[in-house]
Structures are given as C-alpha cells and as structure tokens.
C-alpha cells in the first residue's frame, strides 16, 4: 500500500475505538466503499461479474456460477469471504485494483457475515430523527459528548481561563481579537451568566456577520471577478452584502436557501430576493473569443450542480457528471436532472465581460428617487438626441454627397515642452528616434510623441506647450499610443486603463474653453466617454477609446510665436491610471473627426518614413464607413454605414452644432448618473434549454436522453402535479423534511467553525466514502435543533443559524481548555472526541484584520463595494484582456476587513492566498490551514503588515509613553508579557534603537511605508525601533492563533 493511501485512508477513529458487535455503517460500509464498490457498486458501467454488494438483496443471491456472495450467518460458504482470504489470482480485491484489505478488515467482514450480514441504510440518507440526550439536564451538546467520553474512559477538560475564552469566542464569532478592556470586564464579571452575556454581545455585533459570511462565501464561490481567461471584474458585491445581512439579521436558513436559489421566482419578488438570486450567477464565466457556447453552457451548469450538491447535500454529485456515482446512489441521470433545474437561467456561453452588455442579466439598484431622476435625465437626453437626428436627417436628404474632398486632417504638433507635476518624467521625441513595441517592435522618428517614464505617481498632471505657428485652430486632438511596456491596457502606466479627468488649455493667460469632446469608441469603458474630460468634475474622466477630439468654444488664432499650454489632469481615484505615450494635434478644418486616432490606422499611416508631417491621414479625415457609404446608393447602405454617415454629418454640419452639443451633454449627464447607481448580476428566467444526459460529460452529444428537473431519485420526488419543476421547487425540497442532508451538512460545517473539524471531517462528503460521524447522535441532534429549536430556544425560529451557533458556543465542550495530556494525545491525537478544545491559526482574512485591529487601523464599515488593500506592483503581470497592474484603494478603503477585499479569482490577493483563502473558482466547503515560509515572509515584509506595525507602535506610544512595549503586547495578546518575554522584546528594541539612531535614513524609510498619518512629534529613530518591536508582536504565533 502506498504511503499516500495509508495516510489518507486511515481507519476512522470510531472504528478503532469500537467494541463489538459489528455495525454495517460504522465498520463495513467504509471498507466496502473503499475496496469493493468501485466494481461491485451502483455504477452499472463499471460493474464486474454482474455483482452488487451495496444491496443485501443482490449480494445474497446466487451468482451464475452457483456460488453465493454472502450467506448470512455462514462466512464459510460466503464467496466474498472465501475470496478475500484467497491468495494468488483469486484474491479480492484483485491486484489491478491497487487496493488491499488488512487482516483486521478481513476479520471484521467475516464477523459481520457471521453475525448475519445485517445491512443498514447509509446514515446520512436516513431521516433526521431527534435523539434523546443521554442526560436531560443541561446542554444536550455536552450530554452527548460526555456520554461518549465516559465510554472511552475520558472526561471533559477543565474550562479555559477567561482571557483564552474571550479571545476564542471573539475570533470564532467576530473574527477579531477582543480589546484588553473587554477581557478585563469579562474577567471581573462574577455573575453566573457572564459567558452568556459575552456570547450574546459578540453575536449581536455586525462583526459576527463579517466572520460567519466568509465560509459561506467560499462555499457559494462568491468572487468579484469572472474567473476564466480575462478574469474581469463584475458587480457581485450587493449579493455579498445580502449574505452578510442574512447572517447579521439571522435570516431563517430555509428562507436564505429559497432566496438564493430562486429569489427571482418568488411571488412578488423583492429587490433583496432578486439580489439573492445572484447566487445562481456566481459560477465562473468565460469571455474568451472562439469558445464553443454549448461547451461553456455545459460547464456552467455542471458547476452549479457540484456547488449545490456540496453546499446543501454534503454530497459529491460531481462524480455523476460522467458516470453513475461509484459509491453513493447518485445516478448520472440525477446529475443532469439537477442541472435541468438551472436550465431556465438566461445566459450565453460566451459571457460579455466589458461594456454595456457585460455579464448579461443585471439589476440596477436604484432607490425610487434615483429611478425618478434617471428617468428624467433619460427623457431629456433622448429628446435632445431625437431633435438632433430629425434635423440632421432632413438636412442630409438635401446633401446626397455631402462629404466632398475637404481635408479634415489633424496637424500633429511637435511640442516645445512637456512637464509632469507629480513625478513622471516626460520626454518629447520630435525628430529623435523612439522605440515602441506593439504587435512587434519598431524604431522610428517620434514626430511629437511624448513618452512618460520614471516614477509612477497615483495621479499626475501633464503640461504640454505647443507652438503651432500662425494659424486658426478649431480643435485640439490627443492621440494615445499603445505600447506593450504599458501595463494599463497598453495605454496607462498602471491600473487597467487610463483616466483623463480633465483637459484645459490656455494661451497668453487666457483660458481656451472646450465645448465638445468626442472620442473613437471601443465600447469597453462606456461609463467614461469623452465628455467626462471637459465636464469640470475631477471625479469623472475619459477612458473610452484612444483618440480624443476637443472642440474649442471659438476659433483660436495664433501668431507665429504663440504658445498654447495644454494641461492633462489625471486625478482619478484609480491609482496610476496615468497616460504613457501620446501625441497632440490641432485642427484648422472646420471640424475634425477624432475617429482616425485608431492605433491600427495610425500606424499604417505612419509606415511611410518620407511623410514629412503626419497631417494626412489615410482617409483624409473622413471615417472609412462614411466614404464607403457614400459610394453606395442611399438605400443600399448598410446600417452601420448609415449610422456612420449620420454621426459624421451631425458632427461636421455647422448649423447642427448647438443641437449636437446639447445632445452630447445631456447624454453624458444621463450616463454619469446611471453609472453612479450600484448594480448586481442577477438571475433572469427564460424558456428552459433542453437538458440531456451527457455520457462522459460529452457536450457535443445531441442524441441522448432528455431529462426534466428532478431531485436525486433515491431521495424522493418534487411533487408539482405535472408542471415542470423550478428552482423554487428545488429550494423548497432542499429545506423540506424529505431531504435529510441539508440540515446535517449545515450543522456539521457549523461545528467545524468552533472546533476546527466537523463531527464528520469530510465536510463535502456525507456519502459512503466520507467519514462516519464521530458523534452521530450529536450531529443528528444539532441538525434537528437547527431545523426545529427546542433547547433554550426562547425567541428562536425554525432553521435558526444563530441558535445553532449559540447552542454550540454556550456548551461546556466549547469552553474547555485546549491543553492536552500525553494520555489524551495517545488516545485521540486529532481531538475527534472533544475531550478538549482545539487550536488553529485564524483564517487569512482574520490574520489581516487582527493586525489592523490591534494597530487601530481597522476601518469599521459594514458592506459596500470591494476594496483593494496594497499589493505588489506587477502582481497581475500574467493576466491580459486587458493587460493590467494592481491599483490599490484610497484612504479608509485600504484598511477594511478582509471579507471586503476584491476577490480576483485567477490572482487572489497574496495576503489571502498565502494564508489559504480559496480562490473561489470552485465551491470550497473547507479551508486547509497550512504553515509555510511564504506566510512568514508575508507577515514580516508585506507593506500591509509593515504599515500596521508602524501605526501599532504609534498607538502604543500614545496610550502609554512610559512603557509602550508592554502596552503593545497587551493590545495584541490581552495579557502582559512575562519577564522572559519582556526581556526579548526589550532586547530587540535596544538593538533596533541603536541601529536606527546610527542610520536615521533607515528609520525614515521604515516609517514611510503606508499612507496612514504619522505624528511628527515622535523622533524617527524612537518610532522605528518601537515599530521593530510591534512588527515582531504581529508575527507571533499567539497573535494569529485561536486557542
């Protein structure tokens, strides 16, 4: 047997500790499931010898060869016993199965047959009955465990001390350590219900929801990005907030279930219920060009079944996508019948990931007032556009070949100077050669190209001076050049886009106002059109397209030596969305069309080295669709050409200008308001797609059996009276008495939150290959208590999530010390019996939140759009579509709880990933908990933790200037250091102080990490030395361990 198998197929504790008689569920099913059922189980396609051992009726029938697999009570005449003890070619399981039975397992099977081969239905599929606690007084949780411990000759350990207790409960319930004052208050509270009060206080906090939601979000694979390919961001956070509120407000779990699976189908669905239905849209989506839509629809559907199955059924139905389940009674048909429940979800295989149509069905979360305002703005914009179009069409009818031969080209300028205000270095390449890389590599004359390099500030303002010579100018043009070296979509020096928040121009100290801004369009940043660059609002900006045309309010007349100063303000909240390469142009045509700035055409136009001045564009300032359109008869023009001609005509016809400007302005007002309203992806229903059983998940198969929505056959049926069953029917069934799995799966996972391991540790598999529960009666009691509270249940309701948690946390079992003894370790090394508490490192988010909390940096704000804590530059280097670099949040949003961190599936934030947060590409009902050098590097060197250390030092110093080290330690650990610990910290402090006094620059460097303010009154060396100490404290095992 391989070591791997030995390690992971370890015999269940309950079996090793068990006494006679043999129990099928406890002793036999795990053996059979692991070694026999692959070939002699439910999956007919891999069944051998036409023999099934999972059903007694089948196993006790004579085979064709006359032998009988199992003769109850008579192992000597039972073929399976003969075969497992055989040698050579006849041995079962055979060599090719790579499975072996131990002697003990063989003996157990033999005994079981001798005792009559009694089968039991699998425990998890039996109805949840409510076991009677062995002792009626007190918390039944304790009664069940104590009875079991007594059988094992064990007892509960002593209660943990109050500091430990409060830290444990605070971490478990709120994900934050308690303050020293809270600990002291609890220590001093001698009242008998001190613990109850503490638990109720913690559970009433909104932090409770922030902690409890984390693992639910793992399970439903909530993320802020789509997960495939470009992995672009989508608006999902209102669904996350829905989950948070459900935990905070203790929404009944049956309601929680219905709303998520079928909120959109509920009668008179509320906005909240429609938000909840975003659950159905949390699977990964792909926008990769060239995908085969059917293939991806199959992927999305299968993902939904896997998730539903793990979260509500604690089952591994994913196995049945390709074949009947090998161990549990899920047939392949069950998998596809479950998938059929979701066949009504309106979606496309290729899910657009940018622009107005991104992510399909969305719900605008406008307040009634916002909706009213939006309607008014929309009406106004539509009216302005209509007026313009009508007039334009009338005029156009009289001008059949309007375009003529007028030269509308831009005059590219060779700037005389270019400066940046905030640190970028701008260099002008006029006649100099410049290298560029876009679709290859080239080196050519700059012709006025301005290239930014050097430091990359979060914001900057570029000032460019032009000396165009004598002339009359109608418009200013700005052409952004793509380059592979620019991470921001090839255009900006950071971020995933550029944002030009405002442009202004002046000459001789006089402003040159713009009245119209137009850009070529890519339909990506539809919320950031050209007009945003001249609206006087620094919070909005232009991101859409490559070339911007800005029309002057009145013609600008220059003399030979006139200088026009152009300022490009880049003040976006998105950091480093600053332009990398650009050229500036002027136009002296009546109107110049900016659509020509398209990089492809531009580079074609510029391939001719002999072109002296790049003032001639390939289409002479006229869009290609326009010239082509005019070549055709009016009634032969394509729709696209007609639109292009109308746009061009409106843009270039003098008498239409007031109407055009009004239309553009009102459109922008409407757009700006529309995009300020939050939205969420949601579920909309449509004609259900046909769902077929796909053998081996072959999505190209169109010949197989069509299935209707149905729950797994062996678990019952959804009664609809012939109507096609819906997601709402499914949800109702999940939380009905007919389904024994939901309550058990949920109760088991809840237990894990408070003891570190489930009552059965296989959280995702309550089936026959999962571990049998160590405390089966306790699990069933909890499941029953969850559905129908009766113990200490004043104010509780059915499916009460908080009641379940409270019942567990108020138990004696929970309050035990985690300290073990050699004897207990010997008997129960993994603490499955719960004769003590467990210790484990807190979750990734909590590691982060703890550092922020003890330093005082944590910004306590419930819900809202995702935030982006600091992450390393280049972290998103391997992503594309768009190319991007990480852009951290501003101000308070840098210091929010980890649950709000933007969940980027393909590159999860390192502080989450390093500490085992799942990427949420796939449903995860359990987190691993590792201990790696990368975690050490993160806690030691990640600027998030370095800044927290510095602010932590400031806090300790302010609170206790005489003894900040003790203060800091107490803030983090809720106790004072021992003499020995204090000596170590003092030693580190003395050493650090010496070094920082000798090297003040080093002190300044350390203190400059992070943007949180720093008191100027404290000497740099002193604060830096104390920061070294607080940094050590944040790195302590104790700080990040829940005990």
């Amino acid at each position, binding site marked *: 047997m391989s070591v791997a198998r030995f390690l992971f*197929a*370890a015999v269940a504790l309950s079996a090793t500790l068990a006494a006679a008689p043999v129990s099928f569920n406890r002793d036999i099913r795990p053996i059979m499931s692991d070694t026999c059922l692959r070939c002699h189980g439910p999956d007919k396609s891999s069944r051998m010898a036409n023999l099934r051992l999972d059903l007694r009726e089948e196993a006790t029938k004579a085979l064709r060869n006359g032998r009988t697999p199992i003769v109850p009570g008579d192992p000597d005449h039972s073929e399976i016993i003969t075969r497992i003890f055989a040698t050579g070619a006849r041995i079962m399981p055979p060599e090719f199965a790579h499975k072996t039975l131990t002697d003990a397992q063989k003996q157990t099977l033999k005994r079981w047959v001798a005792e009559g081969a009694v089968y039991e239905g699998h425990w998890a599929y039996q109805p949840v009955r409510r076991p009677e606690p062995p002792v009626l007084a007190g918390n039944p949780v304790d009664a069940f465990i104590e009875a079991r411990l007594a059988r094992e000759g064990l007892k509960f350990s002593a209660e943990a001390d109050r500091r430990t207790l409060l830290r444990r409960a605070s971490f478990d319930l709120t994900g934050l350590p308690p303050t020293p004052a809270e600990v002291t208050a609890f220590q001093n509270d001698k009242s008998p219900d001190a613990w109850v009060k503490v638990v109720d206080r913690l559970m009433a906090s909104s932090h409770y929801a922030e902690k409890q939601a984390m693992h639910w979000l793992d399970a439903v694979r909530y993320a802020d990005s789509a997960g495939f390919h470009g992995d672009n961001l989508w608006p999902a956070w209102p669904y996350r907030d829905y989950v948070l509120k459900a935990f905070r407000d203790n929404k009944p779990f049956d309601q929680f279930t219905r709303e998520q699976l079928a909120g959109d189908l509920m009668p008179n669905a509320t906005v909240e219920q429609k938000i909840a239905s975003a659950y159905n849209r949390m699977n990964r989506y792909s926008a990769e060009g060239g995908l085969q839509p059917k293939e991806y629809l199959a992927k999305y559907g299968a993902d939904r079944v896997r998730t539903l199955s793990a979260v509500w059924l604690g089952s591994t139905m994913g196995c049945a996508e390709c074949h009947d389940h090998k161990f549990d009674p899920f047939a392949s048909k069950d998998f596809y019948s479950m998938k059929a429940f979701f066949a009504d979800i309106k979606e496309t295989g290729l899910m657009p990931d940018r622009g107005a149509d991104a992510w399909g069905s969305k719900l605008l979360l406008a307040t009634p007032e916002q909706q009213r305002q939006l309607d008014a703005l929309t009406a106004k914009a539509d009216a302005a556009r209509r007026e313009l179009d009508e007039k334009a069409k009338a005029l156009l009818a009289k001008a059949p070949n309007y375009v003529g031969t007028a030269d509308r080209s831009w005059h590219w300028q060779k700037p005389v100077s270019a400066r940046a205000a905030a640190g970028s270095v701008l260099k002008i390449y006029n006649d100099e050669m410049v290298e560029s890389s876009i679709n290859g590599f080239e080196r050519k004359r700059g012709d006025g190209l301005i290239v930014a390099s050097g430091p990359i500030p979060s914001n900057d303002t570029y000032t460019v001076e032009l000396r165009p010579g004598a002339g009359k100018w109608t418009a200013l043009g700005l052409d952004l050049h793509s380059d592979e070296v620019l991470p921001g979509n090839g255009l900006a020096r950071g971020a995933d886009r550029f944002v030009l928040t405002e442009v202004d121009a002046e000459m001789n100290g006089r402003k040159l106002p713009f009245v119209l801004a137009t850009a070529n369009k890519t339909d990506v940043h539809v919320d950031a059109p050209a007009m945003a660059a001249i609206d006087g609002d620094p919070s909005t900006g232009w991101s859409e397209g490559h070339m911007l045309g800005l029309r002057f309010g009145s013609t600008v007349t220059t003399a030979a030596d006139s200088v026009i100063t152009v300022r490009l303000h880049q003040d976006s909240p998105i950091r480093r969305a600053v332009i990398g390469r650009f050229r500036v142009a002027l136009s002296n045509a009546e109107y110049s069309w900016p659509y020509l700035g398209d990089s492809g055409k531009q580079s074609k136009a510029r391939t001719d080295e002999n072109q002296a001045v790049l003032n001639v564009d390939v289409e002479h300032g006229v869009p290609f669709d326009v010239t082509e359109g005019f070549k055709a008869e009016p009634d032969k023009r394509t729709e696209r050409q007609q639109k292009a001609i109308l746009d061009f005509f409106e843009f270039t016809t003098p008498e239409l200008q007031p109407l055009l400007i009004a239309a553009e302005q009102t459109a922008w007002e409407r757009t700006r308001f529309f995009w300020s309203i939050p939205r969420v992806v949601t579920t909309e229903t449509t004609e259900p797609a046909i769902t077929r059983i796909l053998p081996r998940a072959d999505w190209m198969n169109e010949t197989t059996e069509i299935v209707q929505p149905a729950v797994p056959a062996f678990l019952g049926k959804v009664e609809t009276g012939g109507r096609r069953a819906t997601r709402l029917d499914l949800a109702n069934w999940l939380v009905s008495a007919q389904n024994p799995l939901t309550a058990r799966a949920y109760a088991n996972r809840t237990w894990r939150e408070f003891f570190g391991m489930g009552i059965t540790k296989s959280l995702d598999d309550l089936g026959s290959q999962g571990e049998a529960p160590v405390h089966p009666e306790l699990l069933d009691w909890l499941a029953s208590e969850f559905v129908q509270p009766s113990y200490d249940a004043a104010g509780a309701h059915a499916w009460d999530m908080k009641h379940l948690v409270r019942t567990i946390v108020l138990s004696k079992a929970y309050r035990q010390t985690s300290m073990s003894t050699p004897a207990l370790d010997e008997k129960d090394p993994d603490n499955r019996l719960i004769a003590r508490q467990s210790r484990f490192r807190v979750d990734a988010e909590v590691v982060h939140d703890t550092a922020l909390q003890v330093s005082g940096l944590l910004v306590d704000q419930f819900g809202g759009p995702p935030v982006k804590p600091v992450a390393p530059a280049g972290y998103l280097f391997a992503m594309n579509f768009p190319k991007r670099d990480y852009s951290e949040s501003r101000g308070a949003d840098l210091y929010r709880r980890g649950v709000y961190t933007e969940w980027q599936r393909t590159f999860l934030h390192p502080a989450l990933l390093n500490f085992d947060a799942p990427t949420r590409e796939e449903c995860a009902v359990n987190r691993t908990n590792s201990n790696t050098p990368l975690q050490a590097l993160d806690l030691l060197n990640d600027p998030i933790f370095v800044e927290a250390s510095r602010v932590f030092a400031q806090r300790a110093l302010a609170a206790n200037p005489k003894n900040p080290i003790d203060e800091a330690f107490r803030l983090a650990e809720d106790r004072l250091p021992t003499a020995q610990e204090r000596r170590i910290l003092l030693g580190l402090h003395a050493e650090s102080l010496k070094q920082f006094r000798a090297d003040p620059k080093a002190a300044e460097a350390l203190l400059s990490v992070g943007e949180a303010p720093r008191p100027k009154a404290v000497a740099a060396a002193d604060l830096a030395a104390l920061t070294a100490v607080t940094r050590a404290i944040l790195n302590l095992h104790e700080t990040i361990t829940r005990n």
Partner: protein
Amino acid sequence: MTNTELCRRSFLRAGLGGISGSLALNSLLSAQNLASKGVVNPLHHAAKAKRVIFLYQAGGPSHLETFDYKPQLAKLDGKPMPESLTKGQQIAQLQGKDLVCFGPQHKFARFGKNGEQLCELFPHIGSVVDDLCIVRSMTTEQINHDPAHTIMNTGSIIPGRPSMGSWLLYGLGSEAENLPGFVVLVSNGKGGQMQPIAARQWSAGLLPSKFQGVKFNSIGDPVLYINNPPGVNAKLQEQSINAVNAMNKIGYGTLKDPEILTRVAQYELAFKMQTSVPDLVDVSKEPKSVLDMYGANPGDGSFASNCLLARKLAERGVRFIQLYHRDWDHHGGVKANMEFKAQETDRATAALIKDLKQRGMLDDTLVIWGGEFGRTPMSQGGDGRDHHIKGFTYLMAGGGIKRGISYGATDDFGYAAQENVVTVHDFHATMLHVLGIDHKRLSVKFQGLDARLTGISGDVVRDILV
C-alpha cells in the same frame, strides 16, 4: 512520546478534512529546511530523472511552423480542407467560417543524424536535435486557453486539482534546502498576443499549500515579500526573526503544540530564502560566455534569462521548474510572429539542453517543450491559425527519454494525430514514470475517492523510454 512522534502520529490519522488535521500534516512535512521526503517512498520503480524543466510555450505554438513538416499542406494552400476531416470536430474562432488549407509559412530544413525536418527558424534547436525526442502526435481535450492550460497542468478542467509540480513535490519531496521545490517563471513575448495565465496553473489545489508553485517575478521582489521592508537591514531582520522565534519557543514550552515549532522552522526558512533567493536570481555573475550562449541579458526577465535561471535552480535541487513563455497565440501574422518567437526561444532552449549536458545534468533532468495545444492547418484571416487540439508537437529531452528520435505523426494536413496518439494523460503518465512514479498509484483522498492526481486515464508511452 517525543513531539516528532506525536506529530507523526497525528499526521498519520489526519485526513484533509479539518483544520487540525492539516496542521499536523504540515508539521510533519516541515523539517528545518524546505527539503522534504515525498509520499512515494520508496519509489514505485527506479527513476531515470530527478527533476523537470518544463518550457511551457503558452498560447498554443503552431506545430506547422516549428517541428511538424507538412509538404502536402503547402501544396494544398488555399484549397478547402476536406470536410471528412473537420466535420463534427471542435473548432474555436473559425466557427462558421470557410476552412481553407494554409501551408507552412516558413521553410523547413534537415538537422541531426537522422535528418530530422525542423523549421529553419530554429537552427539552435536543430543543433541539439540528436538529444531530443520529438512527439508529433499530442492531443488535448480543451480548445480554449484557460481550460486547456488547466488540463495540461492538472489533468482536469475543474479548478482545485493539484498541478503537476505539486504532484512531484507531494510524491517525491524536494531536495532544495532554501528554495521552494516548485518554481514558476513567466516571460512575455514581443508579438502582443499574450493570453492570460491564471495562478491556478501552479496551485497545489486540494493538496496542502506547501506543495504549490512559487512564482519568481522579474518585476519587483523576485519572490513576493522576499525583500526586507525599507530601512530594515539583514541584521535587524535576523534579530527580529530571532525574537519572534524565541517568543514562540516560550509559547511552546507552555502549550507543547508542535505547530509552534513548525512556525519557528518556517521563520528560519523564510530567512534562509531571503538570503539565498536574491543571490540566486542574479544571473549577472554568470560568465559572459554563458550569458552569450543563452542570449540572456541579466535583469531583462526574458525567456533566455529564465532558461539560465532554470539551470541554476535545477542545480540547487528544485524539483519542478516551469517557464511560461507567452505570446504564441498566432491567430494572425503567424509568419512574422514566428520569427519573434524563434528569436526569443531558439537559442535559449538549445543552450539549456547543451548547458545541462555539459554539466552532466541532462541525464537526470527531464526537459519538456510545448504548449496547451497546437494550431489549425486552416488559415484564420488569411495569415493566422486558430486553436487546435487534435494534433500538435511536444519536445522531450533528458532523463529516461530516448534521444534523437521522433514519435507519432499527424496526417498529411497536420490536422489529426494519426500514429501513436499521445493524450495529455499519457504525457503525464510518462513524465511521472521517468521520475519513478506509477501515476496509477499517486493518489490522495478527495471527495471520497482515492483520487489519482493525474486523473483517471493515461498510459505510459513506453516506446520513447530509454
């Protein structure tokens, strides 16, 4: 009972089902350095290779302009593809388009003792062809980049399965003391056709995260957070870590929790990594002759620099080194873009083989060259090729693999692998085989199954083994 024993016991009883179980698992596996034993101990059979360098050409290189010579296709250039071949087959961006033959865009020439036909853009690879095994009959199941990468790396399209580097760390452990055993490097190309690569591709998935690949970066810290914070020098860092560890050891004295000792060990290791990694990734100290051989410019983050770094990592015992080189997604301009790709990879790939050979390391290092799929013999947009899963080429060299051979073939169009078809799973089985692992026996308990890490199918390609 000693702590190590306790630790081992609890590990043996732990599954992956809970927090304490995993803790124990990690405790056992964390020694005082990153070197560790794997679970395949002893090996299933004698190993020929100890480590793998996978030159992963991301985006899907055209086999038709690299190593699969198709003179017939050249003759049929511009003619419709026979429908008998393409009907009912998966297709990506050419869905609904006319399928027209598109001849090889570059000439081929003969190289090596057997006169192997390779594209003439790759003369350096040609110069080492006698050390290569050219597999011209690879196939995969996934036609879009993201899932195709995922199946190539993990054997599955469902996220959360371990990647191949994790298999090796889990199975074989690592011999690198101060370095991760599974290192990932990414370089970009000049053609601007760079598909994204998700971190999932080097994830440990359901295995403990200590088996995950660690990405070395050419921008910023070479390994995330490997550098001290500003103002903290090596001495202060060491003193800080010593203080943390001393405090943690006091905690251990009270709690006797082996997990604390693991934490102490991880901090020591982190510090060792801090001292060794920056030095390691600095290839500027290599002799000029070596830099020239690879065509590497220190600090440029190029594929060539990464190849040189891969050799250094291999020397230090890193088990699995995966170099992603992007920009092979030639939907358009395959002719010109292939020239870029050849400039970027030809010399360096050959240099790595030669360098390993001259150091005696090619005998126990398996070098692999290939991407997530190949490209269509049909043209896309008149000058490009679409994604293609039914036949493409991989190169293998070194430990356990026959040298100077080719294996398998596509049809005359270069469309479907026809002879000796090698699936992704076969490739995985073969790779594991030369490393001493029977892929059918490398499993982990997952969702109730003894899940084979490589997935359920796959046969070793015995014909290419030494």
